[in-house]
């Protein structure tokens, strides 16, 4: 029974649209996060001296500290952004599709 419904969902013209949009968003966000993080880790692994640069002349705080904190905060904000976008853009389309095919 559900197989027939799945077939109908697949045929609904909104479905591929929703899937494509969600994938684009999720995959690009994942790329951003993993790219920034592993980029940072590569710098830590191969050239840690670079991160020992002070934030300003005479300061002891290095750029590694604001960069690390900024990444943590950014990753959190990106999760919030995804939650918001998914609820606004995808959940409503999904409900429409399900409504259309289960009527």
């Amino acid at each position, binding site marked *: 029974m*559900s*197989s027939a*419904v*799945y077939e109908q*969902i*697949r045929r609904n013209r909104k*479905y591929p649209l*929703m*899937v494509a949009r*969600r994938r684009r968003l*999720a*995959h690009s*966000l*994942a790329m951003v*996060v*993993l790219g920034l*993080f*592993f980029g*940072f*880790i*590569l710098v*830590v*692994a*191969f050239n*840690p*001296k670079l*991160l*020992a640069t002070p934030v300003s002349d005479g*300061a*002891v*705080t*290095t750029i*590694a*500290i604001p960069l*690390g*904190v900024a*990444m*943590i*905060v950014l*990753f*959190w904000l*990106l*999760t*919030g952004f*995804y*939650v918001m976008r*998914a*609820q606004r853009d995808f*959940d409503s389309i*999904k409900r429409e*599709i*399900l409504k259309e095919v289960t009527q």
Partner: protein
Amino acid sequence: MTPGRILAAGAAALGAAPLLALAADAPSQSMNIPAIVMFILFVGLTLAITYWAAKRTKTASDYYAAGGGITGTQNGLAIAGDILSAATLLGISSLIYGKGYDGFLYCLCLIVGFPVILFLMAERLRNLGRYTFADVTSFRLDPGPVRTAAAVSSLIVVIMYLIAQMVGAGQLIKLLFGIEYWVAVVLVGVLMVIYVTFGGMIATTWVQIIKAVLLISGGTLVALLAFAHFGFSFESLAAKASEAHKDGVKILAPGNLFADPVSAVSFALGMVFGTAGLPHILMRFFTVPDAHEARKSVFVATGCMAVFFVMIGIMGLAAVVLVGSNPAYFEGGKVGGKLLGGGNMPALHLAHAVGGNVLLGFMAAVAFATILAVVAGLALAGASAVSHDLYAGVIKRGKVAEGQEVKVSKIASLALGVLAVVLGIMFEKHNLAFLTGLTLGIAAAANFPVLMLAMYWKGLTTRGAVAGIVVGLVSAVLFVVLSKAVWVTVLGNANALFPYEQPALFAMPLAFLSAWLFSVLDTSPRAAKEREAFEDQDVRAETGFPGQAVAAH
């Protein structure tokens, strides 16, 4: 070194000096009354919750997944609680105290797994699984072999994680409360089994939520009180810390935590994808009613961790100044010598330095609570692998009454409790430094790759899935056994056969490769059916249709 390793290794080296002998103003005091009072309050409250939860646990869904009735916010707190263990609180703050910025790198690695889980896994897990992540892996595959392989790797991860927690717990509690090591281990084991057996996922989740709130608020309080000593100026904190530390300004930038760049990258991979393959974390996505709440829980969890990690950075640096230059916190009053109570103590000494005995007692009780909550989550994940995957899924082929399955799960959690206590006592004196690296390595190599392929790759077949899990598991174990931490340190050989410290960079590609290879070579009719079934699975993964009934608590 990962946080668990730090706790296990650091704690293993400790003497038994009861913590409160350190209170400079009351040197004769051997027990911290506030700590004991607060600990008893916590245990009392959690037992009351377990009683309440037991009355609400009627079906298998209640038992394994809290009936799907946990909200996103609650689940987010519980997930944060699973990650923020005693090893995170004590181990990372002591690592920052000792090595500065390198300790903070752990925090960064620990948090990155969660955006990845959100973008790639959370919704699909919720839409495809019921109680364990093996539900998702075996969704369109032959449940017999796939569930068996997934359950075995889950169990290995859970048991090793449990051993590390138990040994750390025994040593910490012995230290904080002045009771015998084995008594502490038995106490942790008994409470864990009570929470899990009687209260199932409902009790386990609420214990974790309460502890997460206590830990995050306690950590924030200590950090802010300490930060106030520096006029809330980070530059002033950093300047004073680098003056006080033997390594000077070097502590404010990444140093030489890893022997080589390859180990560093492998470690980061293991931390990120290992977190995304931990059975007790993945299981939490089945406790929420729908994909929206699943997503929200990652947002809340990441936010909690972000706050806590910033606080722990401040705590570690502040401890360099406030603990590291105060003779009262060193054995024999020798600044720069051995810390009273051992290497894991900076966070607790700092609590004492900024808030006296009451805050110290509070943080000690929170550390104990943290251990209890984390082991309970682990035990439930392990018991579910036995009862839901092995017993109901494989042995009974899905034909079993719910009550019987839950009964098996309760017996399994009791058995896991006994096993954890026995192994915890057996390994008291052993160097377990390799355990957390191994645990995350296996989670990253045996659980994560096949789970991802099962959700995203049409071509995955039963043979491929089993091959991927087995190769990931075996290669992660082999690489760790042949590495310095086991081959040289534990087994006493002269040279390591595997030159790097972490397995993930090598074991993960091997797992992906063998899953792919054995899938494409699989031309059986079963494989054809499995590939065909992907399309329906994919629609369900995207839409969550048909939904499941949800319980309200």
